[in-house]
């Protein structure tokens, strides 16, 4: 299969996706949307690793992506459990209410 794509274009796509996620984290106040944006950022970081792995023809990038996948999965399970706690205490998922959490 002959297929070639400029390395910088693939890296740019990863960067753009990462910064869209960053903007989402900063703009939203709903904690579910903040977790979604964090997923976008982690996915973009993994994408950059896979692109780098394809550039230098090594499978190490793909292995790093698998590690990031595991971190993202455990992060989102704890994060969503915390969202349920937040809703239980404050009856809202406004992240600003979490600033009054103690312990």
């Amino acid at each position, binding site marked *: *299969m002959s*297929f*070639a*794509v*400029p*390395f*910088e*274009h*693939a890296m*740019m*796509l990863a*960067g753009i*996706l990462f*910064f*869209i*996620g960053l*903007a*989402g984290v*900063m*703009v*939203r106040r*709903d904690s*579910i*949307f903040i977790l*979604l944006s964090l*997923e*976008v950022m982690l*996915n973009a970081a993994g*994408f950059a690793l*896979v*692109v780098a*792995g*394809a*550039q230098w*023809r090594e*499978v*190490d990038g*793909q*292995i790093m*992506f*698998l*590690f990031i*996948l*595991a*971190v*993202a*999965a*455990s992060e*989102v*399970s*704890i994060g*969503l459990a*915390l*969202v*349920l*706690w937040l*809703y*239980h205490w404050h009856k809202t*998922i*406004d992240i600003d209410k979490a600033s009054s959490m103690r312990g």
Partner: protein
Amino acid sequence: MSTAFYIAGAVAIISTLLAITRINAVHALLYLLVSLLSVALIFLFLGAPFVAAFEVIIYGGAIMVLFAFVIMMLGLGHKAMAQERGWLTLTVWLGPALLTAVLIIELLYVVYSGPFPMIRVVPTTPREVAARLFGPYLLGVELVSVVLLLGLVGAFHLAYQLGKKERERKRGLHQ
């Protein structure tokens, strides 16, 4: 074939942008799913079918279903949408959006100025990935299992405490 990469990339950017600007959480989730699927497609183009499958199964399957469960459990619906409409005002999103746009432009400038060759795609098989994963990276696999265990214990602890509080409240109501 290279055009397919640009089309998938455009779909990824547009659907991610739509995902972070939606009012309704379920719509955002579905747009994010489209974005993840297009990234999986790009992984296939880059000759990484193993990782593409993982992207669909874990990200598009497991993590998105977890989000869907929590959204359904909270069941906020119209109340949350009205709240979001009040929060997403121009003054709120203009500052972060401008700052992020500056960062994106800087990043694009830096990446574009480097002399990089084209990626010549050599497809890799799952066998190669697994051989490397369980060879030099064995310690990493063990560490990942610890991370997953910590996630499990943390989620269980939080859910258990929540259930205990709920049971105590119900017992108080009965007496």
